């Protein structure tokens, strides 16, 4: 099979990318989705709060996804469900991408694609990555798995719950399980700040009187067959448990909400250069990886907290892939590096080719700590060109700055741009 464009993943990123590519004139495209339905993670996010930026109304996850699914169907975009992409490679010609997938009807098959958009989303960090000692009794779930049980299958994982990690999924699940009749006894967060949105802390915890303990972690899990209790302790500034602060909490369920990591096995198979901070591919201004014609967007690129940004980014990827297929995305070696300076963890993109840049370019980034009254600075080489005061910057909220093409052109041969945080500003 041959296709101009193959999109891997039918979540909000894959859908928006497909719609944009189709509207840019690419008809021969195919979305591959391993799940039985389009919409990705949004299908299990039944709470409201999606789409405030895009639609100016508060939609639930399935409703937000529904708008894109409808649009994709209206445009006649081809997709295959229950189809898992298992390998991604490059043909000997160095241009054709080989997408190997399987499903029950067709078995194993390979598609020769002119361009590929990676939109595989992310998955939750597993318990193994958390290093909790003790037995592994039943009753320990990742928050997202619990969300799937409750919201898709109508099953409750337990009655008395402790949640480790205050990421948004954990907070949302604290409310969900409380409403379903469970007792959520505590949300413990290792860091001195929550990784979740303020709004979720207020509406999911405070509204129901669920305590949140910052700088706390689970140090022990009791129970052989099923969780019977967990021991929670305070941690010091090095995140080490402080002896004597242990407290045992009786519960039958422990939910882990300890962050998400992009799902990049396929990018790895192709040998795409990765950013060790985001665990996602390194991309240029066109959201293109170091492999020409392979683009990335959404949570597979870097973890987003607002789906609106996912859709925006994916639209850009779809348009750029279309331009690539039309031969309009010139190859260039002249690139300016975009660097994460003091206080900034990463930037997307990480390099910009000025001649391929649009009039303006959004650079998204996250900070590594909570800052108050600090300035976001943009440096062209060793010259500071912009400084913008922010009342607050937090790791949980994605930030962005906008670069103007005219400014980069005026700066001439620019080798690097740095985004940094100045606390003394």
């Amino acid at each position: 099979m041959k296709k101009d464009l193959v999109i891997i993943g039918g979540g909000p990123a894959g859908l928006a990318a497909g719609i944009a590519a189709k509207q840019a004139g690419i008809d021969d495209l195919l979305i591959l989705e391993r799940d039985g339905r389009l919409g990705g993670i949004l299908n299990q996010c039944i709470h409201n709060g999606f789409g405030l930026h895009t639609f100016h109304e508060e939609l639930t996850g399935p409703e937000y996804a529904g708008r894109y699914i409808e649009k994709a169907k209206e445009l006649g975009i081809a997709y295959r469900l229950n189809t898992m992409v298992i390998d991604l490679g490059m043909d000997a010609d160095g241009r054709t991408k080989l997408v190997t997938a399987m499903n029950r009807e067709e078995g194993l098959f390979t598609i020769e694609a002119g361009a590929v958009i990676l939109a595989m989303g992310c998955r939750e960090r597993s318990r193994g990555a958390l290093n909790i000692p003790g037995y592994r009794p039943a009753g320990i779930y990742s928050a997202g798995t619990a969300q799937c049980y409750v919201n898709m299958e109508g099953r409750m994982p337990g009655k008395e719950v402790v949640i480790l990690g205050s990421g948004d999924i954990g907070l949302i699940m604290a409310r969900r399980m409380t409403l379903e009749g469970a007792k959520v006894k505590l949300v413990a967060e290792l860091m001195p700040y929550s990784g979740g949105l303020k709004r979720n802390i207020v509406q999911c915890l405070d509204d129901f009187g669920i305590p949140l303990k910052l700088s706390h972690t689970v140090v022990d899990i009791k129970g052989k067959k099923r969780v019977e209790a967990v021991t929670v302790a305070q941690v010091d500034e090095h995140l080490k448990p402080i002896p004597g602060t242990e407290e045992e909490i009786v519960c039958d369920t422990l939910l882990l909400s300890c962050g998400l990591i992009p799902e990049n096995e396929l990018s790895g198979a192709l040998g795409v250069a990765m950013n060790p901070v985001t665990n996602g591919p390194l991309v240029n201004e066109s959201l293109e990886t170091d492999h020409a014609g392979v683009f990335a967007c959404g949570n597979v690129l870097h973890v987003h907290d607002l789906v609106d940004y996912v859709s925006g980014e994916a639209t850009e990827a779809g348009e750029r892939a279309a331009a690539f297929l039309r031969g309009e995305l010139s190859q260039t070696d002249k690139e300016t590096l975009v660097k994460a300076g003091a206080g900034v963890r990463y930037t997307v993109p990480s390099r910009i080719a000025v001649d391929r840049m649009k009039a303006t370019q959004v650079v998204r980034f996250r900070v590594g700590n909570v800052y108050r009254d600090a300035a976001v600075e943009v440096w062209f080489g060793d010259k500071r060109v912009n400084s913008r005061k922010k009342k607050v910057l937090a790791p949980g909220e994605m930030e962005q700055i906008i670069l103007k093409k005219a400014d980069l052109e005026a700066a001439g041969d620019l080798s690097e741009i740095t985004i940094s945080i100045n606390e003394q500003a």
Partner: protein
Amino acid sequence: MEKREFVCIGCPLGCAISVDLDGEQIRAITGNTCPRGADYVTKEIRDPRRIVTSLVRVAQGELPVVSVKTAGDIPKGKIRECIRVLKKIEVQAPVQMGDVVAADICGTGVDVIATRSVEKE
């Protein structure tokens, strides 16, 4: 005089706002950085409202449950009652997104609608 503490959700700043209350009377609001914070706590005190999302059982559906929401916000104090009522409801597949699952929930004047479609099994 009673003191109540709030965290404003108006923007990422998340100001900690204190309100001095004399019965129903708001005497003072402190800690907000902008007027939106004052509006927010005033509403939280006078008439806190929330959109409620939950699930309703489905008979003969491809999924055993369908996700639902209140079509508008309802008083915060009615959330649990609303959930209790929804737990007793069972709808018949197929369900279309936007279908009214329960009209005028708990006398709030607000309908509960399906937020996804569930086909027949």
